[in-house]
């Protein structure tokens, strides 16, 4: 196969960090090339160098054998390197058709030829197997359709290389399948595709070749059939594969009086029929695909949305007009799904981020003394092994896993009764994942209750004492004890019989 895009010996540094230390990467025509690595491996930096978001410090880029320079995202696109990101990077206020054609629509004397734009967009969507009204504003479509529009846009130019940066995170299974069909088709047309994802299954389903990065270095580069899963994972985390084998923590049946009870709780349009109880020392897992109603259930419990039918009882009393402030007053805490947008206070220090919940509870006029703050912060930095230059470092300078630990610590410092963990391990490295799991188990034994949401089934099964399974915005069952196995949960998610 012909080498399409070659990156040779790429170096890229940011203040204080060497993100890429001599990385080489080659995409051939007609292949899907998976780029793997844990957070901080340099994956996203490499993608950004390729797509012109970052300029490289040294090294060279060759496209079809000729050295090129990529000065901006626009430049990358014009040279034939198109990118589709995890977040849909289109504009919601314009029509779907405009989103596909904007910037390269043909124009005559009277301006943009709207009819041509519409037809072109319809063709592009049809190529992906979709037939939608392209004149509607993009924001009125589901995320999946928006993602497809982003791919259609990338295809609309004469792209040679298509970079897919975690494109499947917001898609359901059918949509992923549809996407993979499109990818395979494009591959057969001779396009080079760079595929970044966290899902191992998807890598093996669609890729031809894998490159693995760790700490800004190449650690692996092999055709897919020469790199078994276990080896891939151990390359990614730089640790012996056997350490990954973990047993489900043996659990005694939990005997505790529940303080939360839901009866057919729901919120129109987001989630229905939620029935469960939670008592101290329990970890309730919410299993299901993305968009199955997991996060929505958490939002109801935390009073972000209020249930408009069914009932939520806290300590035996009906919690009508449940609000976030009431949830916090009842001793609930939340580590939100979107750490960046809903979790961290990016410019504030680790110390301030860590004590904010405690301080909010104290109120405006009883400020925690500085020595008290320092003491609390030190305790958690030590016990959770938070890696930070100092407690005064702005939290935005920490890695994702360490940010997550600070957010956990912010709540642990306030000793909540119930901690809602929505994807607490997403986007963090495997080591930190295990530490967080172990921490949950320890606190559970001390009597804290958890609601645990994760896309990784294995993790849910390992950490939870009981599992509520969600499907299509409904709770479809509750599994406890021996029943709560991966196979059983999976079949319930899939909607089949056990």
């Amino acid at each position, binding site marked *: 196969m012909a080498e399409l895009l070659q990156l040779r010996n790429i170096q890229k540094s940011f203040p204080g960090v060497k993100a890429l230390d001599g990385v080489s990467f080659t995409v051939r025509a007609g292949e899907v090339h998976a780029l793997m690595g844990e957070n901080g491996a340099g994956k996203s930096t490499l993608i950004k160098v390729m797509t012109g978001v970052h300029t490289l410090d040294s090294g060279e880029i060759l496209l079809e054998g000729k050295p090129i320079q990529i000065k901006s995202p626009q430049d990358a696109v014009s040279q034939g390197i198109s990118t589709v990101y995890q977040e849909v990077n289109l504009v919601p206020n314009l029509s779907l058709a405009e989103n596909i054609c*904007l910037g390269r629509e043909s124009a005559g004397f009277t301006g943009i030829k709207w009819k041509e734009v519409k037809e072109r967009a319809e063709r592009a969507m049809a190529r992906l197997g979709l037939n939608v009204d392209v004149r509607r504003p993009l*924001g009125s479509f589901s995320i999946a359709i928006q993602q497809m529009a982003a791919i259609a846009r990338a295809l609309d130019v004469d792209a040679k290389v298509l970079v897919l940066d975690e494109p499947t995170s917001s898609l359901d299974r059918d949509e992923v399948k549809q996407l993979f069909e499109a990818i395979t088709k494009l591959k057969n047309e001779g396009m080079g595709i760079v595929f970044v994802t966290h899902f191992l299954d998807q890598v093996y389903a669609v890729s031809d070749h894998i490159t693995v990065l760790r700490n800004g270095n190449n650690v692996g580069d092999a055709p897919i059939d020469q790199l078994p899963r276990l080896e891939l994972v151990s390359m990614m985390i730089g640790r012996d594969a056997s350490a990954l084998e973990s047993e489900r923590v043996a659990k005694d049946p939990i005997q505790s009086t529940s303080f939360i009870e839901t009866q057919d709780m729901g919120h129109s349009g987001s989630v229905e029929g939620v029935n469960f109880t939670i008592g101290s020392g329990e970890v309730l897992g919410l299993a299901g695909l993305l968009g199955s109603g997991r996060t929505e259930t958490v939002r109801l419990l935390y009073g972000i949305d209020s249930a408009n039918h069914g009932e939520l009882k806290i300590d035996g009393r009906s919690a009508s007009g449940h609000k976030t402030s009431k949830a916090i007053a009842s001793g609930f805490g939340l580590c939100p799904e979107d750490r960046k947008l809903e979790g961290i206070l990016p410019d504030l220090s680790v110390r301030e981020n860590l004590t904010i919940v405690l301080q909010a509870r104290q109120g405006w006029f009883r400020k925690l003394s500085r020595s008290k703050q320092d003491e609390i912060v030190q305790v958690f930095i030590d016990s959770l092994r938070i890696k930070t230059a100092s407690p005064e470092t702005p939290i935005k300078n920490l890695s994702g896993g360490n940010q997550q630990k600070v957010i956990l610590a912010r709540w642990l410092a306030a000793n909540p009764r119930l901690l809602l963990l929505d994807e607490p391990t997403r986007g963090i490295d495997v080591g930190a994942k295990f530490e967080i799991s172990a921490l949950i188990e320890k606190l559970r034994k001390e009597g804290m209750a958890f609601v645990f949401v994760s896309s990784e089934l294995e993790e849910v099964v390992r950490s939870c004492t009981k599992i509520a399974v969600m499907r299509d915005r409904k709770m479809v069952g509750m599994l406890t004890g021996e029943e709560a196995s991966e196979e059983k949960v999976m079949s319930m998610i899939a909607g089949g019989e056990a």
Partner: protein
Amino acid sequence: MKAIFTKERLPIIATSLVCIAIYVAAGLKFEGFFSLRVFLNFLTDNAFLGITAVGVTFVILSGGIDLSVGSMVGCTGIMTAVLIQNKHLHPALAIATVLLFGLLLGCGHGLLIQKFNLPPFLVTLAGLFLARGLGLWISKESVQIDHPFFSALAGIKISLPNGASLPISAILFLVVLVAGIVLAKQTRFGRTVYAIGGNESSAMLMGLSVGKTKIWIYALSGFCSALAGVVYTIYTSSGNALSGTGLELDAIAAVVIGGTLLSGGYGSVFGSFLGVLILAMIQTAINFDGSLSSWWTRIAIGTLLLIFMLLQKGIEVSARRTSKKAGH
């Protein structure tokens, strides 16, 4: 067939209804309000506001703000007058110079905002001070223009039936308006402005020339306000450095009342035209009444602005609700 009453069009429909309601109400109350002459005066008396508002619409559509337009009108007005009267420059040349000045100053705003990522608000605030200071420095006194070419220019008009006529300032306003509508709807520049207002970083990742467009947006606004300054000099046959005080607020009010969201991305140039008409009608109605003092204009505009903000909010909330449903 596409529905006319879609949610995205609600603001502009509301604006149209308010516009008609005020017109009818004032027309029924005040004799002679319905005459063509009064209507044409809306355009003539507010031509400088309207031209400014067209430029400001683009800025706001992109999610920015331009506070410098009012003092730009004063500055370019006095500059025109002094160039013609004291420096004996030919009016055509003087006007060209002034328009170029406006364009360049706007460009300067755009460059600072774009290249150094400074807040538009702060940069154009500096522009406000700069233009006002420059204008006052040129001349604190009002300068009368007395030049045959200029008088001829000021005398241009299109005659209409019933002895009414459309003077040059109103003509210029309408030309700028039409140009603005076409620019927003039919050109890549216009669509990029909407895209930037919708989501700037996405627009950048889509490979649109966000930087260049942003600079041009402010240049356009600078140019429009300079043209408004020229129109104002034509309208009053004199230049005054203090003219246009507070105009930035009226322009922003007109744009918002016209249905453009201040967060950018949604709105239209035609809506701003309706906004200008509404402001003009309120002012005229208060003048017709005679017993109401001038500050009622301010209070009325403020109240109207409040109502429209609440309306925009309502639409935003209901839109968010729908998209949430669509998203899952």
